[in-house]
Structures are given as C-alpha cells and as structure tokens.
C-alpha cells in the first residue's frame, strides 16, 4: 500500500486486521510525513520512540487476535492533554518544561484501546483563541490555501494543530477539546470532521482546565465513521472527574446506518445572522435540501436567546478561567520568573504570571477576575448564569417538540488569513464562535461535517446539534449528510 498516512481510522483498522499492513508501517509513514511538515507548525513535541514502541506492541496484539478499537492506529494528541513524561504545556510559556507524572484519562483510554501516540499538537494558549495565533510555539498554518494565492491561512482554533495535522494527513486522527467551538470551528476550516460530545461523556481529568463547566474532549478525524470509532474509545465514566457521566457508552459505529427517514431536523431562524456571507447561506440551504432528500422532515424552529450566548460565554468562560488559572503561580510546576533583589512572594507571582501568560490569556483572566469581584458578581456572573439557563431551555423546548437534531452553519466564514485579525478588537475574533458556543452552554453534542467548498476552493462545514447523550443518533445524521455532500477535496501539498 502506498501513502499509508492518508488512510482514515476505519480503513487502516480493516487493513491491519486483514494483515495487509502493520502498525509499524503505518506509524513510520506518519512519522516521515510529520518530519517533512514542520512548515505547518502542527506537531510541537514529536514522540517517535513512544510511537514505535506502541506500534510494535500493537502488532503483537493484532497478531494474537486481541485488537481493541484503536489498535495500532497512529494519532496526534493536543498539547492540552497531560501525557506522562512528555511535555504538556497547553501551548503556554508558563508551563515550559512541565512533564506530567500522570496521564489524562482520555489519552490513557486511547492508549488502552491500542492507539499509537505520534506526538503533541499545537493549539491556542490554554485553548483560548479561534485562530491558533496565541500559541507560545508560534502559529499553525492551514494546509488549505485560497486558489491561486500563497497567503497563509489559519486552521482555526483552539484545536488548530489537530485540524491541520489531520487535514494534511500527518496522522490518521487527533484529539481535540472544545470549550466554545474549538473542535468544530477548526474542523470546518480544514475540511475535517470534529465532534464535541455531551458534557460529561469524556473525562476531563488530566486535561488542562480552561472553563470547567464547558470543556469537553472529542475526536478530530477524516470521516464521520472515524469519529464514531474514536469517540467510543475516548469516553468512559471516571471517578476522578465528578462531572463524568456514569452511563454506558454505546457502540457508536454500529449506529451508522445512514437511514434518517422520519427524523425531524430543526433549522433555527436566529442563526440566520445579518451580514451572513452568501456562500454560507447557500451551503446551509444545500445541507437542508440534502437531509430532506434523505428522508428527514425539515422544520423551522426558534432558539430565542441565541443572540445572548456569546456575551454570556464571555462572562462564564473567563470567570472559570480566572479561577482555574490561579494555580499557575510559579511554585508547583512550570516556569518561575527571575526575581529582583528584595522581591517577595507577591512580586514572584505577578512577574511569573506576566511573563508566563500571553496577552489573550491575561485579558481573559483579568476579565474573569473583574466579573467575579465584589460588587459585580451579581450584575455579570450571576446574570450570565441565568441567561445560560434560558439558552439551555430554548434547546429543551425544541427537543420536547420532537426535534431530533438541529442543522446550522459551523462558522460564519471560511478560514481567514493569519494576521488578518491582529488589529481587530478582541470581540471581532470572538464572533467566530457564534454558531458553536450555544452548544457548550447547553452541554449538548455538536458535530462539524465538511459540506462544500467556497468560491476560492476553501472547505466549509455544517454543524449538527443533537440531544444530550444521543451522540450515536447525531453521528448517524452526520453520516447521512456526509454521504450526500460527498466532500472529497484535499489540500494540494505545498509544505
């Protein structure tokens, strides 16, 4: 077989089990590709020794007929996941040199399922960003370019390294995390599939925390089937995360029938934003037609508090971040600033955090500190939490009316140029999450599926939102959409 790195999880799994290929061969192909792709900035800590060791072990298991779901499949891990003995710094200077003594539950589950870790993937610092421009490692570059234009584009963020690596076939799949759209927006910008499961499906233990009530891990893959396979391997009940759900994990892949006849798909009128680009509007319409043609019933729905999701998010997420990031104090791990003569512990904290956090992280920590401070807690934080209750109720109402899934655009535009938003006000960047953030606030599963290309040849994605805990049904609807859209475009290799 040639170009093994281009395989998806399902294809590679089947080839491994048939004996057509070994995990060592697959892994070597990916490692070679990674070494030739430094221009993308996706892999920031390569772990070839671990990869080859796990690949050899996987080949032994496969030969012995003991091959769990991800056995022998080479993947990348977002830098937000703590991986034992391997640098895990959330793309932040403040965690420079940090090598965890433990493994996150999700990456352990993947390892137990036989997956082969190729290395750690770039991201926005502490998962705060939508363009992968806030990383201490530098920008990630999207393998896609506009037709006839060499300008470097963003892969989106915060899971930009994961998206870029999967789109460029550096690995078969990758882990991502999603607090406001950080799996789905980069998936849409790179023509890949990404699912954020229901809050509580994946354990958060060992994943560097950003906003604990919103954070969820999920897979970023080449196909919907691959997402179903990998999600199943990532999920588990975990006593070490008190919000992890004690529910059985179904066989998601077995639920992919492609039959969505009679399913009720909601089209929320509030997502038709003023100034929406015509190409996004057209994509949404064509996705609606595809689902209707596949036998689904299309209904107009209303989610009246949609407009308030982003402002509520930009209270709640920074508030939780300011609390979570208080632990970076230069005492227990990471990087401590050099001190001047006479500096006490307060100066040590202040200098360490000023040097260790980048501007966007500092901004969010301080906004969070402000909205939680005495006198403003009720006006900002409590009000935002009440609005969050209303946003969740909007979804509960439409699900109670029989809607099975909701179709929306994944992003308000195709990938934009790196540096294009540098001078914009921070709020302009936040608007990238306008279609995805409601899903985190309501704790629901959401998936981005590539559904077409724009006039410049860049991929565009649609988002499907499902009922809580019904990822299997959601993946099946996504599977039908994927089949109808028939998206097969790949970026032309320039790196």
């Amino acid at each position, binding site marked *: 077989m040639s170009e093994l790195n281009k395989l998806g999880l399902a294809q590679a799994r089947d080839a491994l089990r048939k004996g057509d290929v070994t995990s060592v061969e697959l892994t070597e192909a990916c490692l070679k590709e990674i070494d030739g792709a430094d221009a993308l900035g996706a892999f920031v800590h390569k772990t070839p020794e671990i990869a080859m060791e796990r690949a050899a072990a996987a080949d032994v298991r496969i030969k012995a007929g003991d091959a769990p779901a991800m056995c022998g499949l080479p993947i990348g891990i977002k830098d937000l996941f703590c991986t034992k003995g391997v640098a895990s710094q959330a793309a932040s200077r403040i965690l420079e040199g940090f090598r965890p003594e433990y493994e996150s539950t999700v990456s352990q589950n993947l390892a137990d399922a036989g997956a082969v870790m190729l290395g750690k993937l770039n991201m926005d610092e502490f998962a705060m960003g939508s363009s992968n421009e806030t990383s201490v490692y530098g920008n990630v570059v999207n393998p896609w370019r506009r037709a006839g234009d060499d300008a470097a584009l963003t892969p989106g963020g915060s899971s930009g390294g994961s998206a870029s690596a999967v789109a460029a076939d550096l690995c078969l799949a990758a882990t991502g995390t999603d607090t406001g759209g950080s799996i789905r927006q980069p998936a849409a910008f790179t023509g890949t599939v990404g699912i954020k499961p229901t809050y509580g499906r994946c354990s958060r233990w060992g994943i560097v925390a950003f906003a604990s009530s919103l954070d969820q891990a999920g897979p970023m893959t080449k196909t919907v089937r691959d997402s179903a396979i990998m999600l199943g391997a990532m999920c588990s009940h975990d006593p070490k995360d008190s919000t992890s759900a004690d529910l059985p994990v179904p066989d998601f892949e077995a639920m992919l029938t492609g039959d969505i006849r009679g399913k009720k798909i909601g089209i929320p009128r509030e997502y038709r934003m003023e100034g929406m680009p015509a190409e996004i509007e057209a994509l949404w319409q064509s996705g609606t037609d595809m689902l209707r043609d596949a036998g689904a019933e299309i209904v107009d729905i209303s989610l009246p*508090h949609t407009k308030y999701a982003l*402002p509520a998010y930009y209270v709640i997420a920074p508030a939780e971040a300011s609390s979570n990031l208080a632990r970076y104090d230069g005492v*227990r791990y990471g990087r*401590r600033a050099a001190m001047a003569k006479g500096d006490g512990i307060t100066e040590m*904290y202040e200098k360490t955090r000023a040097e260790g956090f980048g501007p966007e992280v500092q901004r969010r920590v*301080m906004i969070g500190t402000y909205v939680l*401070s005495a006198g403003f807690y009720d006006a900002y934080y409590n*009000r935002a939490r*009440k*609005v969050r209750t209303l946003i969740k109720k909007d979804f509960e109402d439409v699900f109670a009316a029989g809607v099975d899934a909701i179709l929306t655009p994944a992003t308000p535009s195709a990938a934009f140029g790196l540096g294009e938003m540098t001078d914009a006000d921070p709020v302009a960047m936040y608007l990238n999450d306008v279609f995805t953030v409601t899903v985190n606030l309501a704790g629901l599963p959401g998936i981005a599926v590539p559904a077409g290309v724009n006039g410049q040849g860049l991929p565009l994605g649609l988002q499907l939102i499902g009922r809580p805990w019904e990822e299997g049904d959601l993946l099946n609807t996504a599977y039908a959409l994927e089949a109808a859209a028939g998206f097969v475009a790949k970026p032309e290799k320039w790196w």
Partner: protein
Amino acid sequence: MSIDQSTAARVAKLARIKVEEDALPALAAEFNAILGFIEQLEEVDVEGVEPMTSVTPQRLKRRADVVTDGDQQDKVLANAPDAREGFFAVPKVVE
C-alpha cells in the same frame, strides 16, 4: 460601566499579573470593549430564572471518606521550579 485606569490596575493586582503603568490605558480600553459587548445581557428578562450551577442535572457521587492516594512526594515535587528538602521553596513570606 466604564473601566478607568485605576480599576484596570486594581483588577491586574487581584489577578496577580504585573501590568506596567504605561500599558494600563490600552488594557482599560480593551476591558471596555469586552464589557460593552457583555452588557447586552442586560436586555434579557431573567426575573425568576435560576442561575445554572450544573449543565447536566446530576447528583455528585459520594465515596467512602478514606485515603485512596498519597505517598508520592517525589512525583509531586518533580516539576517544581524550586524544591528543597522535600518542600516547595518560595521567597520569604513572613518577616
């Protein structure tokens, strides 16, 4: 609500992030842009609405009150920027 430079300085202090005097005006302006955006929330009628505490209604699990972990001092200290004699070392805290 408009944030002036002294409020920005106070927030930076609370967050334990050193911000130089000359960076305060730009910081205050950024805060105001973000807070201006957030203030849309005032339009929402939240009378009688409970603030969300947990997105999934669930009772937190309980376990027996016993030690299940520990005796890992070397691992706990392994990543410390300054560890001495089995402790985290910090600048003098009490005069």
